[in-house]
């Protein structure tokens, strides 16, 4: 029973991975791509790890999978946030269809959205 739940969670994780990479292809600028791909891929790989933990239980393989999943869950949003802040300081423009740029307006001075 619990093995079946584990396989179902692994399939859900793979579906999230595919959707995240599709977002990485289809979205217009770097901030949208980072938003889609990081959330979906984090949940996807974390789902794979939780599925392996549910299948194997408290064996060495299950415990290592659980530790790796928790590490991904902690570090991937931190890396994404640091990369987004670095790229907005570096001067990479937003997509021209964006409607609000509060960080660029307050911290960096002036409008930084590209002209329409």
């Amino acid at each position, binding site marked *: 029973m619990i093995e079946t739940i584990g396989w179902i969670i692994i399939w859900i994780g793979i579906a999230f991975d*595919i959707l995240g990479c599709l977002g990485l292809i289809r979205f217009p600028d770097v901030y949208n791509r980072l938003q889609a791909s990081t959330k979906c891929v984090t949940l996807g790989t974390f789902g794979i790890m939780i599925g392996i933990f549910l299948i194997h239980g408290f064996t060495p393989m299950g415990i*290592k999978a659980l530790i790796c999943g928790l590490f991904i869950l902690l570090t*991937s949003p931190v890396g*994404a946030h*640091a990369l987004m802040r670095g790229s907005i300081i570096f001067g990479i423009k937003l997509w021209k269809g964006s409607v609000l740029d509060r960080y660029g307006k307050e911290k960096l001075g002036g409008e930084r959205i590209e002209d329409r």
Partner: protein
Amino acid sequence: MIVMISFLALCAFLCFYRILLGPTISDRMVAVDIMGIIFVGITALMAVLFKLPYLLDLAIALTILSFIGVLALAKYLGKRRLDD
């Protein structure tokens, strides 16, 4: 199991497309980060497939390497030194 690894390999090819054609350096680095996490998933599934628990140690090492790489590039993009 083979089908699952094939789907993840398809995801890695999509990320490789973005690495080749990304307009800016941030696009390429986002794609490299996501591809590293997908390789972690492939390694974990191969550990289950071949029944080798030490491949998960490799998965943990890949996660740490991807995280350190992204943080280093974020420091470089933010125009700060590494010891700042």
